[in-house]
């Protein structure tokens, strides 16, 4: 049974359409990440689910009950905010228990629930403190505890890790994943960080300009992005996008003499001279051994060792490509080298429609 259904949700602020018709269905226990740059409408969608904003059109159903017009407190949701939104005048204990206090849960029961949540989050020793006496990571745990203690149908997270420093962010990411695996809760999580999305989600909705560009599992988003936008948004370093066109059944990379064979379906469907964008993930490139094909030559310009990998910047004709190689690769800047790729590592997009072919 689906825990959350979003049906044709639209939102208009003045003359601006922030959401242009969103359809989503979330099974119980799923971890859905809304991924996109700022201004894509992901936070608006989250606020609409929470009841902090009302949709201009469409329906939101939680546990198969329409919640449009229902007060946030009656929606059976809990929310974790980017700024943590802890009540500064209350102790950690009261912060966590406030939702229960407002719902008139008896004090003893409340204390028990707070204790359990604090134990799960390892903040039992902080219960007496005020938020101002906590570090960023501790505040975040308290904010999560406040949501946890309510045991709602759906958890909503609004960029919860973006105020933390890089190391803490990684720790909390793992912590969130652990919590989700342990509790099996249904989560909608907003972020602009593709690593967070890839690591946490059971499904990702990549959003752009108030629409869902692609809704799929992290693996599918990574391996089969359906549009150029999704291809460029997910992956680090981001995917190489080479302008090319179809000539004699193969792809010829613009401003170079490099040709790359196309899969039969693509070349059969393609028009002669059709403009393409060839997407190649940096990590699917490798140094070619003698006679290996498909392969192409490139001028190596910069070699950077990041530790686990060697990042190469090179040019093919006028176009720039990046390759992530093994750190032990024997390669120097200023040389000309051949790079090989597997045929199935090629993502082919139509340049005009920006859609996958």
């Amino acid at each position: 049974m689906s825990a959350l259904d979003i049906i044709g949700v639209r939102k208009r602020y003045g003359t601006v359409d922030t959401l242009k018709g969103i359809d989503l269905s979330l099974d119980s226990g799923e971890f859905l990440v809304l991924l996109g740059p700022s201004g894509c409408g992901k936070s608006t969608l989250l606020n609409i689910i929470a009841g902090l904003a009302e949709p201009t059109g469409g329906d939101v159903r939680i546990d198969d009950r329409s919640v449009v017009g229902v007060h946030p407190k009656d929606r059976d949701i809990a929310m974790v905010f980017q700024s943590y939104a802890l009540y500064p005048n209350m102790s950690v204990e009261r912060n966590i228990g406030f939702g229960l206090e407002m719902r008139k849960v008896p004090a003893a029961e409340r204390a028990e629930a707070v204790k359990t949540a604090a134990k799960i989050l390892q903040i039992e020793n902080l219960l007496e403190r005020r938020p101002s006496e906590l570090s960023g990571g501790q505040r975040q745990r308290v904010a999560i505890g406040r949501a946890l203690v309510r045991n709602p149908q759906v958890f909503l997270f609004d960029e919860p890790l973006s105020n933390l420093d890089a190391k803490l962010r990684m720790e909390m990411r793992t912590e969130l994943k652990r919590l989700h695996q342990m509790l099996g809760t249904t989560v909608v999580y907003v972020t602009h960080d593709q690593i967070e999305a890839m690591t946490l989600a059971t499904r990702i909705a990549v959003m752009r300009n108030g629409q869902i560009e692609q809704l799929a599992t992290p693996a599918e988003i990574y391996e089969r992005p359906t549009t150029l936008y999704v291809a460029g948004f997910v992956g680090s370093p981001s995917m190489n996008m080479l302008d090319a066109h179809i000539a004699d059944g193969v792809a010829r990379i613009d401003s170079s003499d490099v040709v790359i064979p196309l899969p039969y379906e693509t070349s059969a469907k393609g028009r002669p001279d059709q403009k393409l964008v060839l997407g190649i993930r940096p990590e699917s490139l490798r140094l070619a051994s003698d006679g290996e094909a498909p392969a192409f030559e490139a001028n190596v310009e910069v070699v950077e060792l990041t530790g686990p990998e060697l990042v190469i910047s090179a040019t093919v004709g006028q176009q720039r490509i990046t390759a992530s190689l093994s750190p032990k690769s024997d390669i120097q800047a200023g040389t000309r080298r051949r790079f090989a790729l597997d045929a199935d590592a090629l993502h082919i997009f139509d340049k005009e429609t920006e859609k996958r072919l």
Partner: protein
Amino acid sequence: MSSSWINTRAWLLMLPLLIVMVAVIGWPLIDTVRLSFTDAKLVGTSGNFVGFDNYLKMLSNSGFQRAFLTTTWFAVISVTAEMVVGVAAALLLNQQFYGRTVLRALMILPWALPTVVNATLWRLIYNPEYGALNAALTQIGLLDAYRSWLGEPGTALAALILADTWKNFPLVALIALAALQAVPRDITSAAMVDGAGAWSRFRFVILPYLAGPLMVALVLRTIEAFKVFDIIWVMTRGGPANSTRTLSILVYQEAFSFQRAGSGASLALMVTLMVTVLAAIYATVIRKTAGAN
């Protein structure tokens, strides 16, 4: 540069101001203290030294005791009303609605008007023959016949308190509004999701943000209300039957109407002392609240 020269230069730079302050505040204050121990008249004799006579007479004088009670009553009721109405107005003006900016600007008007203008307006409203209050109350049937609101000892002080509240609530509202705008949106959203109704959100989440700034408003308004003179002088001159005679009015009458400079001075110093005590209490409270946060 040596530190002694920096010190000297600092004093030199402050010297003109110090001279002015001593001339217009220091000297008159000292002379008032001297006067309060004499039986000096405003004109004529420079008076004889009478020791604590003025103070002792004053404390046992029923006029003084009554003025003290009137002042306290005026200050407590009007400041309380200003705080409540001011915060309510701020909460209202913090909502999103069409015409909010215009309303915010309009709200400041009573406070921005000179007290004399404000007091004159209220005298017109309270006028026993053609006042708007009488007209309104009789028309909606709450009143049988026109009354002289400022002419009856039973209603004059209440009428003054209403006028003073009207004039001064915008200051409280302005301070509260500024504080409200500092309440993070996420916090009130979180409280909504947590299930807090409007009253709980105000009581548990918003009010703690307002406490500090409101304390400042409370201090300012209490001290001012305790010293109140102008609005009463314009509207009732302390009457009828001394029912609105506050300490400041009493000081004025004693020193200038009855021309008893000596006892007027002792009265004025008493008021100063009371206000100083109030200010000291508040300063302590504010330091404690600031420390608690």
